[in-house]
């Protein structure tokens, strides 16, 4: 088991090295002089000199790469051109918001999606199934930001049922320890702050959850349908086991394998979706910060954030791989 995990970890290393190389080249692929490209309109002779020295643009390329990687390994991902704030710092500051949003969306997708997919498979061919399949298809093709805009405009701006933007009502004086607003509210026992944070999460989470929900529904449905045709289910029925027992002990356990893998893989979609959703709702996470960085071409931030996201995504995939190995012994062997 440990060997399996270690093997997967080792396979991760060349990918991360490749990533760092890719992003290294990426900044230098900008048209013109890298220092000038980084500073853009704010280029002054002193600024240019400072950036050139800081990034080592006048050094040989190999030397630059070594400096870059050394800095990365020390957690130094550069500083924002706009604010001067270290990229690592701003990432860690804003990441909890996106994690909260992502977890809320994933929770929604799983809690609604798995039962729906199961029911659709059990009632295959009947109206419920058709409805679920059509709905999930629509969910996959509707652009996240369109849905987000619609939700916001209908439920927030017009009906005023839910807040329009932000993570929390600025009028509530909330204490923030971990930057996970809901958790903070619970930890400090400021229940109104916690509730307010939850309320602000609803619309963005619903918008973000749509695509993962649709995918989970489809995978669950396909998987359950396949398992239900297996011989061991027929044997269980022949043995006279109660329907609920069969469902629980045989069908669900085996059907959920591909579903679990899929859930892990949604992380990538959630990151991408988060950029769009957070922008619509002015939700102060890495997605929105990335959007702003794109707008002002803040390349160190773009480079650093994308690297961070890729690392997190790779780690999540690693965990999914390992968990798949835990659940299914056949994977461990191969």
């Amino acid at each position: 088991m440990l060997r399996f995990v270690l093997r997967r970890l080792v396979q991760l290393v060349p990918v991360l090295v490749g990533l760092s190389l890719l992003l290294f080249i990426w900044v230098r692929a900008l048209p013109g002089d890298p220092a000038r490209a980084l500073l853009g309109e704010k280029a002054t002779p002193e600024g240019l000199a400072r950036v050139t020295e800081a990034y080592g643009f006048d050094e040989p390329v190999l030397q630059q790469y070594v400096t870059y990687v050394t800095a990365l390994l020390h957690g130094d991902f550069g500083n924002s051109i706009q604010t001067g704030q270290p990229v690592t710092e701003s990432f860690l500051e804003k990441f909890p918001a996106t994690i909260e949003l992502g977890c809320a969306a994933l929770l929604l997708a799983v809690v609604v999606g798995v039962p729906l997919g199961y029911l659709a498979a059990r009632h295959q061919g009947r109206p419920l199934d058709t409805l679920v399949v059509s709905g999930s298809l629509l969910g996959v093709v509707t652009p996240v930001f369109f849905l987000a805009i619609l939700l916001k405009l209908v439920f927030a701006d017009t009906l005023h049922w839910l807040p329009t933007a932000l993570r929390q009502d600025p009028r509530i004086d909330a204490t923030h320890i971990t930057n996970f607003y809901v958790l903070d509210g619970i930890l400090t026992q400021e229940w109104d702050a916690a509730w307010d944070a939850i309320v602000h999460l609803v619309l963005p989470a619903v918008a973000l959850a749509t695509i993962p929900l649709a995918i989970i529904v489809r995978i669950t449905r396909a998987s359950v349908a396949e398992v239900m045709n297996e011989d061991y289910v027929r044997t269980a029925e022949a043995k006279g086991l109660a329907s609920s027992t069969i469902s629980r002990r045989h069908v669900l356990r085996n059907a959920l394998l591909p579903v679990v893998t899929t859930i892990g893989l949604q992380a990538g979609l959630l990151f991408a979706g988060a950029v769009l959703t957070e922008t619509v709702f002015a939700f102060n996470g890495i997605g929105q910060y990335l959007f702003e960085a794109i707008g002002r071409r803040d390349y160190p931030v773009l480079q650093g954030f994308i690297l961070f996201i890729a690392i997190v995504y790779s780690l999540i995939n690693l965990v999914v791989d390992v968990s798949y190995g835990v659940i299914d012994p056949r994977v461990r062997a191969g």
Partner: protein
Amino acid sequence: MSITLPPAGGPPVTLGLPEEEIHGVSLWRGAFRRVRRNPSAIAGAIIVAVFVLVAVFAPLLTPYAPGSAEWSGQVTPTSVPGPSADHWLGLDRFGSDMWTQMVYGARQSLVYGVVSTAIGLIVGATLGLVAGGFGAVGGRFGQSVDTFIMRCVDVMLSIPSLLLAVSIAAVLGQNAYSVMIAIGAAQVPIFARLLRGSMLSQGRSDYVLAAGALGLRKKRIVVSHVVPNSVGPTIVQATLNLATAIIEVAALSYLGLGASDPAIAEWGRMLVAAQDRFDVAPRLAILPGVAIAITALGFTLFGEALREALDPRTRR
């Protein structure tokens, strides 16, 4: 024509069976027939056909030019003229004809979608074929080429595809080409993996072994046998990717990375512009958004139906 058995002391016997029951149906003809019978596939095909026709014949469908903002005088902060005889879908907030914008937007989406998918397909398939070809041939050199290429693909896959497209577009500048290259690049890993997998699995199949045993050279086997068998799944993937590409083009526009020329109508940009006039004219947001969704739906339905039709497991 029916089968004739060789005469054995009697007149030739024909079994009277139709041609196809005897000779079998080709993969594509069989697939075509199954797609024809599938209602969602037909729906998808119709949507795709309408989309393509509208995109191609855009100038014929509207007398106006896109992004002209000619009627901006009629637009006020509290009202945007709705559908009328002159303007079938009304005006947009800048004073351009909405129908023209929608129609030319379809054209943009088609061009962007097709070109980026083509880039992804060509580059990705080449990489995949090379990797799979070397990997299937074996040997230490072959394996290492395969592994190297696949590691590069893994690196690209470690960044969520939209963010990959975003980073490339941010570097290449705000024009049409950067969008197409960016989205195309994000699709390369998908095709690379697909083709490589296809090459490797077919390398182990019986007919390849048989061809080798017959003395066919490897290159001949690959070109005449393996590649044609990979075409089906590739087309399916390309269709599905086209759906994704159309959505991602709109997403990039939403993030401010698309072409900035106002004369180019693009559904994603229209969505951005429509947001703050939603209470006054919701159709400005709903029309492009629904258009994106329906177009992507069409390609997805068709692609999925094609996949099911080509799947050997479900064929008779």
